[in-house]
């Protein structure tokens, strides 16, 4: 077994185990960054396969993506700062079935499919070849995906902005109570009284 084989097995192990831990952990932040770890291992496997651009781009994309995901999940959840434990699994039976079916289909494809036997020449510039493909034959698909993503991003910003299309987003909104049925944190309890009290203490 060469060191490349060894590296592959170690990285594949990391990818699978951290992918599994995503669903066993109890925190959104941990789940996001375990998924990132899984993707980093997959990116390294792609480097082993000689995909120098796709592998490194995966590091880059996934790092930003998981960071944004963790940040926004915490921002939009009532769980303060992502620190409280919470169950990371929903509809576990359906999810497990879907996972098994997807895995079987992909693994089956890898085993049965008739992959072409074209070995690239030793000096092939894979980065240039990929660029030519993306902005040549596959340009329509590539650019359509790009424009769709851009439209999604603009849509999300418009919907989530404070001055979004539904008016000021914090108008009438109220954080949950500190005790069941109690007053929310930071609520102007009794209007003037609460804020006046606060002022007093700031001296």
């Amino acid at each position, binding site marked *: 077994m060469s060191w490349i084989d060894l590296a592959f097995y170690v990285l594949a192990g990391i990818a699978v185990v951290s992918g599994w831990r995503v669903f066993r952990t109890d925190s959104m932040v941990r789940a996001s*960054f375990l998924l990132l770890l899984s993707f980093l291992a997959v990116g390294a496997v792609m480097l082993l396969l000689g995909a120098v651009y796709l592998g*490194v*781009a995966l590091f*880059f994309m996934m*790092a930003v993506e*998981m960071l944004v995901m963790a940040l926004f999940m915490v921002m939009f959840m009532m769980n303060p700062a992502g*620190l409280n434990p919470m169950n990371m699994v929903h509809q576990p039976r359906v999810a497990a079935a879907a996972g098994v079916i997807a895995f079987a289909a992909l693994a089956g494809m890898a085993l049965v499919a008739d992959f072409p036997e074209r070995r690239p020449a030793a000096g092939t510039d894979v*980065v240039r070849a990929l660029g030519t493909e993306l902005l040549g034959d596959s340009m329509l698909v590539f650019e359509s995906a790009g424009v769709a993503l851009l439209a999604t991003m603009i849509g999300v910003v418009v919907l989530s902005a404070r001055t979004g299309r539904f008016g000021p987003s914090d108008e009438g909104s109220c954080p949950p109570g500190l005790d069941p049925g109690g007053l929310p944190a930071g609520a102007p309890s009794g209007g003037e009284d609460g804020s006046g009290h606060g002022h007093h203490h700031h001296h």
Partner: protein
Amino acid sequence: MNEVLLPTLVVLSTLLAGAALVAVLDQAVAGMIAGRPVRGLLSATFARGMLLWLRPDSTTEHPDALLWRLAPAAYLVLAALGLAVVPWSADFVPVRLPTGVVLWGAVEALATVVIFLEGWAPNAPLPLLGGYRHVAAGLSYILVSMFVLIGVALPAESLSFDAVIDSQQDLWNVVRQPLGLPLFLVVGLGIGVWGPLRFADAADLAGGTTAETSGPRRLAWALGRGAMLVAFSAVAASAFFGGWLGPWLPGPMWLLLKMLLVLVLLVVIGRLLARMAPERFVGLAWLLLLPLSFVDLLWAGLLALYG
């Protein structure tokens, strides 16, 4: 064996010696600005490092202990990864990667993750605030950095640092793309948690991400910030000052001199400019720096096409 050992030694010793140098430089610049005599800085820096090292380790209630230990180490590893793809001469590149420029982009993104996790791991309010502040700043400057780096790769028609340096034979990018270096320096301050962008472990949060950390981990974090600045300086020197190119002296000497220049720039900026309010920086990054980076990219593209 020499193919593995020598590059590893060069990268690690540059990072560690560089991190110490950054600490000394920082004190020297601070002293000069304040008009204090600058003497005995080396021993004072060493003593401060030892003080951090020898302080008893502290802990918090229910921390993520593994992550708390891993975060400073990961920060150092990322600095080493970034420095490893920078060529020292035409023949000596620790890791010759055709997509080195993209790897540096990944280092910037992952460093933001690591800084956040350093703040998240102790399970305490001030570190967490520091971590979130840095995420907001990081997400803002990573985009700027991406466009600046694409601008640098355009005249080279390649994503490897070899080609980027080679494209500066006649004219350095610092002249050819005048907006590039100033924008990229902002990124350097961010990734090293330095000066005006020192949001994560700032004094106004009583130490922020490091508020609950002491002992060897605290020293490792301080070293990591210096090491990250060193790695950044090597990348900036290669992207904007022609890297190892230069007359008379051998390539590695030129690279080291240019790295020193970038480090001095960063340290002086760090001591002259006050820390911004994080929300003001986010506004500045999205409303001014990002459009400027578009202009930089457009400029680089037009120059590559018609220049």
